[in-house]
């Protein structure tokens, strides 16, 4: 009998080695990566917990507790949905990377990250989860670094900020253990709350610790950046929820909700305002993601199961927008040796139509425009927030308009006539024709998914609601 949860730790690590060895055969390694991530994502979602399943003559049991190096690994319903989210998001990003950046280091590094991040969701106590997340973040630098450019400053900043968060995460555990023994000593609880706030502000790129987000998006590999903004940050969100679930005193701390709401609102405002003024597409993506992260924090700050469900809904739909933006950005950069500065981008829409479409739809979804996946979360949040806090809802709507303005300006540059050498429409050669159709197919598929969720949010909302109902720390 095989313990199912070990599959999600060991198999990706083994795959990382295999995919790295197959890097020369880009299509093979990409198909293997997409297929495996998709299969594992579906498997963990579909296989019943606690029951033995016969798979190709082998018995697999999902759920339960196993011991590894003396530490407990526990698979519960919450972890199951969280890990499925990580794997399915990774599969989508791998599929886009297959078309726009097939020789990327993202495939092998991505599998290592999936293994470590899944481990962080399963392991108890939480100090080990924090350490595993930190190892994963340090490993991300290999995927973030573009092969044809100097060292990524964004990657260095990301690692630096995340490393500063580590002490807080580890010390909280010790402080809360002491607080459990001496509940009268509220200084311990105050210190834990401060450390929790600071640590997750650093990890999630909350203002004023947000510098790494636009930096990563502007000078790192775009799809690796999308991986960081969705998979890595997704795992960090689940780590935050695990902290709040494990230490309910922290979630019921008097200033927790207002602090989270304020931090989220500031992120939305700063992200929206700075996105509107960006002419560099990478930084636009970074600020768009910053605003989107802020939306989830505002939802969490609302409190109750509804707030948590909205935060999780924002988290679940984010990958569609960010990954599309990143794929578009990569495609546009590949067509444009001058980087993603405005002068170099003029008229590029005719040369890279699929890249432009991906960037446009991804950007609009990140901004939360109607008929996009991002709108599903935003609209539900505006409706829930408006009766109690109309000003915050209005501020968020205006700030989201900032991201739309940024995307609109980028689109007008991409569609404008170039000042010098005219750009013709892309004419793929016979060899490139199949590649061109494949790219078109993958982009159209993801765009359809993005618009489909925007039109039919009921496809994903029940998952967010169910996930929220599994947490008990915020009460009804």
């Amino acid at each position, binding site marked *: 009998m095989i313990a199912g949860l070990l599959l999600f730790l060991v198999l990706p690590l083994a795959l990382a080695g295999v995919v790295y060895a197959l890097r020369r055969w880009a299509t093979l390694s990409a198909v293997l990566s997409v297929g495996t991530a998709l299969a594992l994502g579906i498997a963990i979602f579909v296989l019943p917990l606690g029951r033995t399943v016969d798979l190709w003559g082998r018995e697999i049991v999902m759920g339960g507790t196993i011991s590894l190096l003396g530490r407990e690994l526990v698979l519960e319903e919450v972890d199951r949905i969280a890990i499925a989210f990580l794997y399915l998001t990774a599969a989508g990003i791998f599929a886009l990377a297959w078309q726009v950046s097939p020789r990327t280091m993202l495939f092998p590094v991505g599998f290592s990250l999936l293994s470590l991040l899944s481990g962080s969701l399963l392991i108890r106590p939480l100090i080990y989860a924090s350490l595993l997340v930190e190892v994963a973040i340090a490993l991300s630098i290999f995927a973030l670094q573009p092969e044809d450019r100097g060292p990524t400053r964004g990657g*260095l900043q990301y690692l630096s900020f995340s490393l500063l968060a580590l002490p807080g995460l580890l010390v909280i555990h010790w402080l809360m253990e002491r607080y459990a023994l001496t509940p009268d000593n509220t200084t311990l609880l105050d210190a834990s709350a401060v450390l929790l706030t600071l640590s997750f502000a650093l990890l999630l790129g909350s203002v004023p610790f947000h510098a790494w987000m636009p930096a990563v998006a502007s000078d790192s590999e775009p799809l690796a950046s999308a991986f960081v903004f969705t998979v890595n940050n997704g795992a960090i969100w689940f780590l935050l929820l695990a902290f709040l679930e494990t230490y309910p005193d922290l979630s019921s701390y008097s200033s927790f909700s207002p602090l989270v709401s304020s931090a989220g609102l500031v992120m939305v405002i700063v992200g929206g305002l700075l996105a509107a003024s960006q002419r560099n597409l990478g930084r636009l993506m970074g600020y768009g993601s910053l605003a989107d992260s802020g939306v989830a924090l505002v939802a969490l700050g609302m409190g109750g199961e509804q707030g948590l469900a909205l935060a999780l809904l924002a988290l679940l739909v984010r990958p569609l927008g960010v990954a599309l933006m990143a794929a578009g950005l990569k495609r546009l950069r590949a067509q444009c040796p001058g980087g993603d500065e405005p002068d170099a981008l003029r008229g590029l829409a005719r040369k890279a139509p699929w890249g432009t479409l991906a960037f446009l739809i991804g950007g609009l979804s990140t901004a939360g425009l109607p008929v996009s996946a991002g709108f599903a979360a935003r609209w539900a949040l505006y409706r829930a927030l408006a009766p109690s806090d109309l000003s915050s809802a209005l501020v968020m709507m205006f700030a989201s308009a900032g991201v739309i303005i940024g995307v609109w300006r980028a689109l007008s540059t991409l569609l404008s006539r170039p000042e010098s050498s005219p750009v013709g429409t892309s004419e793929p050669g016979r060899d490139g024709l199949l590649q061109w159709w494949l790219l078109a197919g993958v982009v159209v598929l993801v765009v359809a998914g993005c618009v489909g969720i925007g039109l039919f949010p009921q496809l994903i909302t029940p998952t967010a609601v169910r996930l929220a109902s599994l947490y008990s720390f915020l009460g009804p």
Partner: protein
Amino acid sequence: MPLLNDLLARIVSFAAMPAVVGVFVTAGLLVVSRDWRLNLLALAVQYFFVALLMTQVIRLEVAAVKALIGWLICLAFYLTEQQAKSLTRASGERSDLSFQGWFEARLDGWRREGISVRAAFGFMAAVVVSVAAYAAVSAVPISQVPEEFALACYLLIGLGILLLGLSQDPLRVGVGMLMFLSGFDLFYVVLEPSLVVTGLLGSISFVIALGMAYLKTIQAATSDEETAT
């Protein structure tokens, strides 16, 4: 063996303050100096002093493992710098690898140019951070941790963050991160002496070192390509 352990315990108890001084000197040197050979030597010595301090609170074997991880990182950095130098040499830069040649070149540089503005600024900033660390020991005492330990922690964390802020070179940024981690480890090892935590913290240090080595090699390779074009 018990005799050896007793002897070591006595040495360590006498060596606590000198070890803190050693940590201070090496950390200061790492902030001020931009000579990679000197810096790697300082980092290796710093790992020795940190391990020496740790032997007061954890088993000698565990402290030795931590020192070994540090020295392996120094080795990885040394090999990376050599690789980067050979890549740069390939694009035409002359380099003398002998110790005497290096020393004469440094001496000549100091005679001609004196201390650089960057080094002077680094020195002043390091002094300010060190004074702040000294003040923090009494202002924000760390419970369960001896005073000299706390001073070493604050020094390493403060000077590590300073180095992170002042540098753009991947290896120097990496050294800043490792100093920060060493400082935190010095404090955390008292709270959680678990071997798994030691292993995971060591893994973080090692992955950071490998990542920085990778970035440094890319930096050397891309600057080489730019020179060639």
